[in-house]
């Protein structure tokens, strides 16, 4: 504008409209910063500026309400999420503990089964050896049988069998195994076992080594007199193989395992979640302890009972076939259903349990497969109505 275009003096000062507009802009800026404490002024004229002011104020009200409402809902949701997260974390922690317990239980089962297998295997070998010796027609035959049995009975040792000569002063080599190169004969006085009439062991270079054993070696030696009807007939001499010994021989790395019967009973308490929800977790924990105690009381010393997780238990029974395992599971099921439960003086009624039975080697030949088979049978028991014993059937997995 030129100077002629300007109006009379005073037109350069802000007008009332400019002031109102400036005030509205201030209000809008404040609202934009979520400050709703200074609403726009609405004049009595009800004109356009008043309408704009009213509109801005009402929009500000809506935004303020929406902001507060959102904050409240976020806070409420956050609180709920925290509760859920804590509950999930608790469940995760418990699952991890259960998984660790399950792993420990599986490992223990595996070890126990291995021990059972080994023990039974050795018993059967000794039984077979005894049976053979009893029908031997001569001493030579008997010593041959011993020489054959030696590697199987003493897989980690070289061995030799000696027998007394007619004068009973000297023992003569009659058999050896695993490449053992013992002396062909030696005097009675050269062996502590023959002199004492009992087992003699020399560990490394310590202890009293027999004169017939090499003195330039530090391996373990065992001399065992062969006694029949009170008379010493000869000697078994064993040299235990060490890692530094070059003559590893041809001892078997593991004798052939025989099929040994054993059973896994997998048990699950019926409707335990409902029981927990009804009576509370503390009553539930007490019930689990009562069940565990009942199981342990009903099984043999050599059987294994362990908690498999949640409300599941595993019982490993050695030396039984499927029929006997099923009978035992049935007895356990009955005992559990007879437990009179109570918590803090209040009766809780009774519970029932379902059982799945699988036996080794009939249903599986590895611990993992055996447990899986028992679990499948347990599932069948549940599906069939609970409170019963089901035997693994391979058709169940295919179904």
């Amino acid at each position: 504008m030129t100077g002629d275009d300007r109006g009379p003096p005073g037109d350069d000062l802000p007008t009332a409209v400019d002031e109102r507009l400036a005030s509205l802009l201030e209000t809008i800026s404040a609202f934009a910063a979520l400050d709703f404490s200074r609403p726009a002024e609405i004049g009595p004229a009800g004109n356009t500026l008043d309408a704009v002011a009213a509109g801005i104020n009402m929009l500000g009200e809506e935004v303020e309400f929406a902001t507060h409402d959102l904050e409240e809902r976020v806070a409420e949701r956050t609180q709920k999420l925290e509760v859920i997260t804590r509950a999930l974390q608790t469940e995760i922690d418990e699952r991890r503990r259960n998984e660790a317990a399950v792993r420990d239980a599986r490992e223990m089962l595996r070890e126990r089964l291995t021990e059972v297998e080994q023990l039974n295997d050795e018993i059967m070998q000794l039984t077979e050896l005894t049976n053979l010796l009893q029908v031997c027609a001569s001493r030579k035959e008997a010593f041959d049988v011993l020489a054959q049995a030696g590697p199987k009975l003493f897989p980690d040792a070289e061995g030799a069998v000696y027998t007394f000569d007619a004068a009973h002063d000297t023992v003569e080599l009659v058999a050896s195994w695993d490449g053992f190169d013992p002396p062909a004969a030696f005097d009675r006085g050269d062996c502590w076992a023959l002199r004492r009439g009992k087992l003699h062991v020399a560990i490394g270079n310590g202890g009293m080594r027999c004169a017939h054993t090499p003195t330039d070696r530090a391996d373990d030696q065992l001399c065992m007199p062969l006694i029949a009807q009170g008379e010493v007939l000869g000697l078994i001499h064993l040299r235990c193989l060490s890692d530094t010994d070059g003559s590893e021989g041809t001892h078997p790395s593991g004798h052939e395992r025989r099929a040994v019967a054993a059973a896994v009973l997998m048990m699950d308490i019926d409707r335990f979640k409902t029981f927990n929800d009804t009576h509370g977790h503390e009553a539930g924990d007490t019930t689990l302890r009562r069940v565990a105690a009942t199981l342990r009381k009903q099984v043999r010393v050599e059987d294994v009972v362990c908690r498999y997780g949640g409300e599941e238990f595993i019982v490993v029974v050695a030396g039984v076939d499927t029929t006997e395992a099923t009978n035992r599971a049935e007895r356990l099921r009955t005992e559990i259903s007879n437990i009179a439960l109570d918590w803090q003086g209040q009766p809780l009624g009774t519970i029932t349990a379902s059982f799945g039975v699988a036996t080794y080697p009939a249903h599986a030949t590895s611990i993992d497969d055996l447990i899986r088979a028992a679990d499948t049978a347990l599932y069948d028991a549940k599906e069939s109505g609970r409170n019963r014993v089901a035997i693994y059937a391979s058709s169940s997995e295919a179904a």
Partner: protein
Amino acid sequence: MTDHVNGDKFVVWLTEDGLLRCEWVDGAVVTSADAQQALDAHAIVTGNVPAPLLVDVRPVASVERTARRIFATAPTTTRQGLIVGSPLSRTLGNFFLTISRPTMPVKLFDDEATAIAWLRDDG
């Protein structure tokens, strides 16, 4: 049955042909308490029978958010005709329609006759 009720900032009455009418005092700033008082007055004059409502919004200076929510869900009215004139009253009416989303039919009018004709039209 009372045929009219005088509130703190309004007067409510029922016409002979069953039209509910409400007029606010000049420059009224309608709060939630005012809105609830008005609804109570509606119920009194109609005997709790919902009726079409004609409101002259032109004197009103502003309506609080909570008051708008109360009017938007009023169980005492079957439909509402709002008479607007100034830019301010038109803004108040449009905001009520679009933001408060009333649960009954609501329409803005520039004159009373057209508003009454619409309110009486059942079709």
